[in-house]
């Protein structure tokens, strides 16, 4: 598998936090207004992507966040780009739902929300970036960001383009979106700003976040690139829409495909970015995956969950985490898993509890295990590999 350079990356994370904040263990989790069915979440600050007041055409918040990520991303404006947009459903945004309900018998009411539908979101982001090459939109739920990078890698390998911009965005941190996840029983209902507790025995669900990220992937030479996308793996669980499989073999297969050219993951990996949602089932399955994957050397690899600080940004989460993986490769500081007081028993793994730690090594692995059973693993390397 070819390594492709990542010349630049950018995030729009809850609380507008960035890598130095993560190293410091800062949390973006705040109390939500009473219109929400749960007490805590991880929103963006109000001054980042404020709502547009254009009654004629309502821009989906998911698109607005994607455009913010584009604006923060440095890229060569003269290059010919492809675009892979990881933007899961916009159908739970309140403006869309309210107007769709009103439109029964009066479809003219849908005109202001036409940009929610069909190819319009992808076209909007492509136009904003000035992309004139191929473009697609990916949705594999919480693995969308990782899978978008994989699709971009495949385009580069196929020679379709030399440069691809990958953008991931999710904005379901609204009462309707939160209710959907809450009624499924996947959210923490704690009234506690430390409710996002991946790998802790007291974890009881995830805290919802929102955000976006962008990454430029290139098959051209970029000598100053901070890292390279050097491997990936995908698999499907084929078991349950929201659950994880009892047999972790399929999750392992995704990780091992990504690590195909790394002979000894337990010794060669500097860091693993866990999916680490803080749900009972996900974290328990991940612990089993990492124990099996790393074998005897498991205690020597730093593994943490960024979601402990920014909650779960759904489709954007894995691209945000991929960006932070590159920062960790460059800076040698693994971000911590905060709110981890009592680790799950028999998890003899280094979850980097509450305090960043120095790491060394040439590879980092970023994992995403999404609703619907999408497993997606990315391998980043310091150099071309």
């Amino acid at each position, binding site marked *: 598998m070819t390594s492709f350079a990542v010349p630049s990356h950018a995030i729009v994370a809850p609380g507008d936090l960035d890598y130095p904040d993560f190293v410091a263990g800062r949390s973006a989790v705040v109390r939500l207004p*009473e*219109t*929400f*069915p749960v007490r805590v979440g991880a929103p963006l600050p109000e001054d980042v992507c404020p709502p547009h007041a254009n009654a004629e055409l309502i821009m989906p918040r998911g698109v607005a966040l994607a455009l913010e990520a584009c604006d923060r991303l440095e890229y060569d404006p003269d290059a010919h780009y*492809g675009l892979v947009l990881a933007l*899961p*459903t916009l*159908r*739970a945004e*309140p403006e869309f*739902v*309210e107007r*769709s*309900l009103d*439109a029964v018998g009066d*479809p003219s009411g*849908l005109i202001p929300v*036409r940009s929610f*539908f*069909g*190819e319009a*979101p*992808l*076209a909007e982001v*492509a136009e904003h970036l000035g992309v*004139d*090459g*191929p*473009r*697609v*939109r*990916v*949705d*594999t*739920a919480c693995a969308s960001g990782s899978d978008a990078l*994989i*699709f971009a890698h*495949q*385009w580069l*390998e*196929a020679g*379709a383009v030399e440069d691809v911009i990958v953008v991931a965005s999710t904005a379901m941190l609204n*009462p*309707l*979106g939160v*209710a959907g*996840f809450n*009624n*499924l029983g996947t959210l923490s209902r704690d009234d506690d700003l430390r409710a996002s507790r991946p790998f802790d025995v007291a974890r009881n669900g995830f805290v919802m976040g929102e955000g976006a990220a962008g990454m430029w992937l290139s098959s051209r030479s970029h000598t100053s690139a901070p890292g390279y996308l050097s491997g990936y793996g*995908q*698999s*499907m*669980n*084929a078991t349950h*829409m929201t659950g994880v499989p009892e047999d972790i073999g*399929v999750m392992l297969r995704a990780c091992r495909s990504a690590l195909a050219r790394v002979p000894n993951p337990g010794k060669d990996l500097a860091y693993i970015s866990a999916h680490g949602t803080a749900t009972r089932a996900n974290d328990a399955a991940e612990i089993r995956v990492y124990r099996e994957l790393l074998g005897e050397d498991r205690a020597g690899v730093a593994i943490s969950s960024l979601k402990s600080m920014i909650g779960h940004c759904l489709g954007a989460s894995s691209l945000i985490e991929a960006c932070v993986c590159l920062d960790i490769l460059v800076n040698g500081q693994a971000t911590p898993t905060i709110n981890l007081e009592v680790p799950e028993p028999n998890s003899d793994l280094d979850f980097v509890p509450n305090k960043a730690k120095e790491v060394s090594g040439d590879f980092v692995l970023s994992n995403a295990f999404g*609703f*619907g*059973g*999408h497993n997606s693993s990315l391998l980043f390397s310091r150099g071309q590999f």
Partner: protein
Amino acid sequence: MLRLAAFSAALTRPLGTCMDLPNVTLVEYEDDEQRRAPASAYALDALSRLEVPTDARVVTISGPPGKFIHHMEPIRQRSPDGRLMGPKLARRLRRLHPYGLLLCLQNQVSAAISMEFGLTGPCMNLIEGTTAFADALCTLEGGKDHETTLLVMSSAADRPEQRELTKLKFPDSVLVEGAICFLFSPDGELGLVGATASGRATSEPKKNNPKERPASLPPGWPHAPCLEGGMCVLWALASGIPSKRFWLSDGHGYQTSFDWQKL
């Protein structure tokens, strides 16, 4: 180019002589209450007529899932001011069915076929893109690790809650929904399908022009967002077209193309 080994389709309206092809059937959506959106039901129906290895590489192209908004109606009806986002929202939202959220997720087609048929290979789900068919072919041609590739297109753009939205784009068109599946393998003998060229933006975007078909299909055929690439191949198969380049357009100034060659 990819070698087409098998195909199937479940469609809500006839597509000319395509309905004479084996494994292409006319279907009606049967509501199974909360559990499954129409787009998933069509995909399961179509795929039930193919034999797919469980380690096959899978790409799904998903259009509108077709059933979500109506779950919000009971919540709005309980609003003191008649607005969904009105007073006592958090309390009213308790009535949202636990499966309600799942019905709006646009990866439910890939999830449903994976669960139903035990597919555990790599999977990519592209959404809301008529042009995505050619863009997906472009990556599939480079796939060396998986001999068999399954490509599933599924869309429910003609459901009541979706129809008016679709018609904003295709105002005077008849719509079709359903699913089309293609199985590609090295020993496929039905034809070659490929898109080695990348997509390109058209120089003059033509938005919402009902006279411009988004695909090079026969006049009078119904519209089907996300299915049109598959409809082109079915047409080529049914008509015995020896070779042809098909064009797909997103209506926003972006076009892709793919080539068909009969074997």
